[in-house]
């Protein structure tokens, strides 16, 4: 019996088991505090959808051998820039579209933002990849700090960007973009609102979930195509790939560009669900959160699959969603949920790092 349990734990992974138990535990505690189970479930689903595309951006980066892309901020700023332009052009308020359906206008706006974001992401991802191809072996550190640096750099851009739309402009100074932009009149809920329905407290953002599923499916298709297999091989064993005539650097470039594009789309999906778009240093920890979610889903820093994204995001964001609710009951006016996030997110990355060296038992 014990052996069986141990075997199962080995198969699923120790932290996964522990955290699943933790998830169930806080769910129970939440019910004990009189929170609505359906409501909590709804929060889980909402956050799951919000974060899963961002987490998905890790997969091509890990598969092509770069490792967890902590520099997902490269994609994030592209997505933000695309959205800023879409909002500033007031696409969601174009009369012709609104007269057909306000939802349609929003959808057009968000697709425009995504397309623009993806367009920016291609050259930026390419440049990023050229850099990363020159620093093989130290990618995690470099992506982290490049990510931090680009956010600081874009902060300068945000302060001087000549935007017209009053919803964007920083009211106090009259120039630049405000820290948090409300998306109510632009792309807020553009995906989540489609076909959404509710059962009591449980609100299902059908459109967003469908969109996430579509993104996952596209990445899945790509990874099992010929170039996808080549990309995975380049990551798993560069020498092997080279011996088979695959250009490893080209594959890594493809992976990074893809990751950057997905990051750009991901931040837009994230923002439209939360209804707010955060600029400046707000997305700084996005890379760590996304990486932690995938790693929690059973990925390693060398291999990741779509199911790691789906499971990992559900578990990680589920704990966060219920954690927030329960923590507010347990200890109001503290940031207990933020504390849990920090420990959980960084703890799981540390665990993955330690695992990647076989426990480091080897000498020298």
């Amino acid at each position, binding site marked *: 019996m014990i052996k069986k349990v141990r075997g199962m734990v080995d198969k699923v992974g120790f932290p996964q088991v522990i955290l699943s138990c933790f998830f169930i535990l806080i769910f129970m505690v939440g019910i004990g505090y009189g929170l609505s189970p359906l409501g909590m479930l709804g929060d889980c689903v909402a956050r799951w959808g919000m974060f899963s595309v961002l987490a998905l951006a890790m997969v091509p980066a890990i598969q092509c051998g770069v490792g967890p892309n902590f520099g997902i901020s490269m994609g994030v700023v592209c997505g933000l820039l695309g959205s800023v332009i879409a909002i500033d052009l007031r696409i969601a308020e174009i009369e012709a579209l609104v007269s057909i359906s306000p939802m349609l206008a929003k959808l057009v706006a968000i697709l425009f933002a995504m397309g623009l974001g993806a367009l920016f992401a291609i050259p930026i991802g390419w440049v990023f990849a050229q850099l990363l191809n*020159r620093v093989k072996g130290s990618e995690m550190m*470099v992506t982290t700090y490049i990510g931090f640096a680009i956010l*600081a*750099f874009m902060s300068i851009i945000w302060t*001087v960007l000549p935007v017209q739309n009053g919803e964007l402009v920083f009211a106090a100074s009259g120039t630049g973009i405000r820290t948090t932009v409300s998306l109510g009149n632009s792309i807020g809920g553009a995906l989540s609102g489609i076909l959404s329905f509710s059962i009591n407290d449980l609100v299902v953002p059908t459109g967003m979930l469908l969109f996430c599923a579509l993104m996952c499916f596209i990445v899945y298709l790509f990874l099992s195509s010929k170039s996808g297999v080549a990309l995975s091989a380049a990551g798993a064993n560069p020498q092997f790939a080279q011996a088979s005539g695959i250009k490893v650097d080209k594959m890594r470039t493809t992976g990074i560009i893809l990751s950057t594009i997905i990051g750009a789309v991901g931040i837009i999906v994230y923002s439209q669900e939360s209804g707010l778009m955060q600029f400046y240093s707000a997305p700084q920890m996005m890379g760590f959160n996304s990486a932690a979610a995938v790693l929690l889903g059973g990925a390693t820093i060398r291999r990741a699959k779509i199911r790691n994204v789906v499971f990992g995001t559900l578990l990680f964001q589920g704990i966060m969603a219920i954690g927030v609710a329960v923590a507010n009951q347990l200890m109001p006016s503290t940031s207990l949920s933020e504390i849990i996030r920090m420990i959980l997110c960084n703890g799981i990355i540390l665990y993955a790092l330690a695992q990647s060296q076989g426990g480091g038992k080897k000498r020298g």
Partner: protein
Amino acid sequence: MDKNAFGKKCLSFLQRNAVVLIFAVVALFAMIASIQPATYFAGEITTRIARNAFLVLSLIIPVLAGMGLNFGIVVGAMAAQIAVFFGVHWNWTGLSGFFLTALLATPIAMLFGYLVGRLFNRIKGMEMIGGLVLGYCADGLYQLLFLVIFGTVIKIDDSRVMMTDGATGAINTIDLTPNIGSSLDTTPLLSVIEVAFYAFLVFQLAAILYRLMKKRPISWARHGVQVAIAVVVYALTYIPYVEDLLRQERLLLLVLTEFLCLFVLLAQAVRCILALLRKQPVPWKSALGYVIADAIVYGLTYIPAVYDVLVSTRVPMFTYLVIAALFVFNNVFSKTRLGHNIRAVGQSREIAFVSGINVDRTRIIAMIFSTIFAAWGQLINLQNLGTLSTYYAHTSIGTFAIAALLVGGASVHKANSKQAILGVILFHSLYVAAPAAGRELFGNAVVGEYFRTFVSYGIIAVALAMHAGNRLRELRASQNENLRAGPAGGGKPRAALSAVSRGFSVPGRCREGKKLKTSGEGPGL
């Protein structure tokens, strides 16, 4: 030919110091753009060296140990903050309070350093990213301690450090002014010398007793001379002028410069006299160089602009002394048995292991040292600031200290104390100047702040990228070198080339030109 060699030398100097020079130019530009008076910068930078240099110096040992830039110093800073929290709660004040706090912080930092070292041994080769992530993870635990555990599990009823009116956890900002604030900065050297003198006497006595107890030989003459020197030095402080000078808490930069000039002059004289006495060749040339440089520096103090700066800036002497002590320690340490082992481990874990060095243990010791120094460094930082921002004081410590070290010209594998000090000065020049420069150039001080954040992150990214890139390039270069050089041991490629194995005629179809081309490029790996 000569000119060419000189040009090459210049070029290689520029290349080696590219980071330092570029940064110096950027900082200078920001300072000019900010249109602030030089006195402002001199004062600010003096203060910031006092605040930050110790922390930056705490990064040196892990670099020697081959563990890269220690992002884990954040954990050391947390140890210091825990100690400060209790120090305020128990109402430790003044300089003694500072030392008590340091004493409390040390075992905590030791424990943390040990744990960090254990973790780093499990993730060899990934210490930096590990340290960074660990810093964030530890931040969560730290907040858990201060926000949740204090007040619930550990009941602390003290309105100076804890939230009141129903809220839980420690307050956001703890005022240190009544406790250890400025305690180190305001200690005059006179008290330090007095304490040191008595401590030295006690130490000498203890050493003699210890040897008597262990029945070891005692060199009375050596002790006598040492005590005599101590007494003379102590007696000197009774000269009214010296006493006056030493009584000042913060010495005027002008006075300090004058004393430095005098010291250099005396040191050169002593050096020459010693050489004469020992009948060694006297280093006239270098001594003369020093004296001339000395004279120039002294002459500079008469330029009004420089004079203004020198008379408006005051240096917290004791803090600088403590920083100098770590500076000296870092240098001496690498010449001890342990320091030597640490360097060996840093250069090659494998070779160190077969040479009988306990690699894992050595690495843990290096981390413990670094963490303790980081804790002390954070204490110095906090006493200078005068407040403890409970939840934010540690957050940017790692990034800024590391950026400063890199700006000074250090790399992931090579760093020394000089680079640390130079880096602190350069980095903080930009840091001080950036907001004002932003206001002047863009009409917005925030731009300057974002710019300095960008620079500190960017410099780390660039330094790491350069390091990784160099490593790859060296690998490739050495392979190409091997191809060109032919047989191992480098000798005669021609002879080797002509050796054609027998029995096979050489076909003429392979063209020479093509062959050369392929050999020149060296395929990428």
